[in-house]
């Protein structure tokens, strides 16, 4: 199956800002069993994708489609078996660009003995932010995510939704140019979801980009400029949301779910 790449027209940007937020060129990732070398799982196959500065990109696909693997390659958590990947214009092997990336993981497990403020200070130090910047931003972020009165409490007492909010706060601490959200709405209530949408909008308004991996289609519809569909490790579609929901043969639009179903059925998933 050929992968059709479509890029929405964008206004001209300064040269420095034109570097893609993320770019994958023919990326493949094969996991090999640590004991039985012949047992292999192809998590990604020939994935080619470019995420532009200032766009919110949604990555869709069934379970075990390779979405998290793509995120891991982008964040240098694993290396591609073939192809090249860049992050903010530099190869993913260059860790310095991670200082401009925010990441929210679907199941965040933070050190439970830390307080919310302590966690932000800890993660701020690991993001190489000066302490005075962290001290200035942390209270504001906690207030914004409704945790201002819980800042001094050990996070062992936090609910899952509160942990997700704290996760969002830590991801925004460095005012990222690239925000990666991997199933971020897990455990979030309605207010939390609104805060998430606001955070994505804020990153975009600063010229940053957002990569959203989600099964919650309403989030994708509300947030994303373009979407990519991964099925069985292959990017089977990349395009604008409007293109995606346009029926291929009839002159009408479909729901996002119907459009997605078409790819799953075609790929036998």
């Amino acid at each position, binding site marked *: 199956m050929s992968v059709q790449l479509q890029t929405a027209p964008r206004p001209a940007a300064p040269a420095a800002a034109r570097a893609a937020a993320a770019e994958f060129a023919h990326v493949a990732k094969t996991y090999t069993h640590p004991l039985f070398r012949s047992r292999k799982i192809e998590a990604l196959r020939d994935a080619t994708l470019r995420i532009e500065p200032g766009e919110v990109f949604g990555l869709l696909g069934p379970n075990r489609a390779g979405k998290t693997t793509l995120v891991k390659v982008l964040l240098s958590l694993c290396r591609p078996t073939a192809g090249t990947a860049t992050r903010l214009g530099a190869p993913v092997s260059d860790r310095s*660009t*991670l200082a401009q990336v925010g990441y929210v*993981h679907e199941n965040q497990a933070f050190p439970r003995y830390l307080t919310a403020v302590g966690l932000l200070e800890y993660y701020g130090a690991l993001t190489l932010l000066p*302490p005075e910047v962290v001290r200035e931003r942390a209270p504001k972020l906690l207030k914004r995510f409704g945790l201002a009165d819980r800042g001094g409490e050990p996070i062992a007492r936090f609910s899952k939704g509160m942990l997700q909010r704290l*996760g969002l706060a830590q991801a925004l601490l460095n005012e990222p140019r690239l925000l990666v959200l991997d199933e971020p709405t897990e455990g979030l209530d309605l207010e939390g979801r609104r805060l998430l949408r606001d955070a994505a909008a804020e990153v975009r308004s600063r010229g940053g980009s957002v990569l959203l991996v989600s099964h919650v289609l309403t989030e994708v519809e509300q947030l994303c400029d373009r979407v990519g569909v991964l099925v069985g490790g292959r990017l089977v579609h990349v395009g604008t949301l409007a293109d995606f929901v346009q029926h291929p043969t009839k002159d009408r639009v479909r729901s996002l779910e119907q459009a997605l179903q078409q790819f799953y059925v075609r790929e036998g998933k």
Partner: protein
Amino acid sequence: MTAISSSRAVAWLVRDTFRQALASGPSWLMLAGSAACAALCLMAPVDGSAAAYALEQQLASWAVHVVGLLLALVATAGMLPAFLDPHRASVLLAKPVSRRALLAGKFLGVLAFVAFHATLFVGGAWLALAVRGGAWDPAFLLCVPLLVLHFAVFFSFSVMLAVATRNTAACVFGTVLFWLLCWAMNFGRHAAMGTLDPHVISPAFGWVIDSAYWVLPKPLDFQLVLSDGSHGEVLGLGRVTERGAWSPALSLLASALCGAGLLAVAAYDFAGAEY
């Protein structure tokens, strides 16, 4: 600026690890053990400074370097696997700090924790025995850096197992087994050199046990250094020393180098590990 920021991040990791370890259950157990030891030393029927020094030697060679070391290894074995758990590590590893710096911060934090408890235990016992028996010679306090070095060598092996398996049980049992193996090798080598006639030992056998002795850490030698070799009589340590086959300084240096090698392997493995 990056170097300053990186060292600040490592300092944060050290502080965080120390705080985490201090809040753990085993830490309270160790505190209670130190308090109990100091109390027992105060109540011990010590008659003069000679008896106090003899008691210090027993404490140094057995309570500190066997019980203390194994307790510290077991208490801290779970910290690295928990840190390397994919759910917790993925957000940390997506930060710009290098993986080697992350591992170094964690390692140094655990060492700081062990140094803190070793200081409390040894310092408390020394003060109690000094007050009770007038043994004010500070030589006993050398137990603290020696225990930290001894611990660092075997904790490096635990770190290597943690990176390879991310499993606490593997770290606990693997490290204790490694310690036993090294102790047996150390004891066997000194016993062979000290009690057997040199003509009885074949050159090949001598080369094998000597190589194993110099390559592996030497837990028994740490005990011997602290007990001034008094426990070595049973091994014929005097003969081993006469034959130039035991040098405390070289032994400690070789153990430290082995620990550094194990830690370098762990750091290399961690730098290339996939999450």
